[in-house]
């Protein structure tokens, strides 16, 4: 990570920074030997804010968790590498009841129940992300 030294010139501070530098990654701001801040590009900050909002939202759930991902924001099953959308598509495609899904995927019934509730309140996000995945694959030349 690039580091900048904040220099005190009487009462004002100066920083040599431009958009091209920020586009390459975060820049640490030091006063003396202490890090007093980190500068990021607006796009990176937007992603960070979205991630933080999802993380805060995830704290309301007992069995779901936000996993870091480059573009996906929906929650995952805690302790598993499975998104809520992936679980729901399995349940719907195979016409599973809550209990059948819990048994078949070896999950606590309460976890499946919470995932179903999350799906109901975040259906737009989950369906948007399914379309986003298809669009990303299409952009790479795959027919989806």
């Amino acid at each position, binding site marked *: 990570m690039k580091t900048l030294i904040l220099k005190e010139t009487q009462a004002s501070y100066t920083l040599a920074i431009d958009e091209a530098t920020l586009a390459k990654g975060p820049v640490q701001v030091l006063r003396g030997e202490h890090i007093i801040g980190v500068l990021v590009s607006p796009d990176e900050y937007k992603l960070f804010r979205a991630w933080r909002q999802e993380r805060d939202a995830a704290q309301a759930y007992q069995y779901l968790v936000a996993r870091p991902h480059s573009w996906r924001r929906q929650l995952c099953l805690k302790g598993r*590498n499975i*998104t809520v959308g992936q679980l*729901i598509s399995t349940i719907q495609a195979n016409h599973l009841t809550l209990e059948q899904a819990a048994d*078949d995927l070896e999950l606590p019934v309460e976890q499946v129940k919470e995932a179903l509730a999350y799906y109901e309140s975040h259906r737009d996000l989950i369906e948007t992300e399914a379309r986003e995945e298809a669009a990303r*694959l299409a952009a790479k030349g795959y027919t989806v």
Partner: protein
Amino acid sequence: MNPRLYLDECIYSKRLQRMLVDAGYQVRTPAMAGLIGHDDWAHFEYAQEHELVIITKDADDFECLHQEHPNHYGVLAVCEEAQRSKNMSYTDIVRAIENILQAEVSLAGEFYILNHWQW
């Protein structure tokens, strides 16, 4: 000879595993590999090391891994549909795997979307 399969964590189910075994496949699971909760790379690397064809629902992420590390034994991805009624059932997945094998296409180093192999 049927290829040996690895059910990625996002697609694993007891029923799907049993249906694939009944259809004549050797199937490894994340629990067998000790990889429950691990990231995509851990599953991909395990399949690569054990010469297994990966079955996954994490299509875009595994396509990226396929591009970065093409010396694998095959990735067969099931895409989630925004229109939920179109999602593939266990029966659809088993049939699509059978169809792709009957077509005798090369799997090693290749990435296929199983949704296109349903008939």
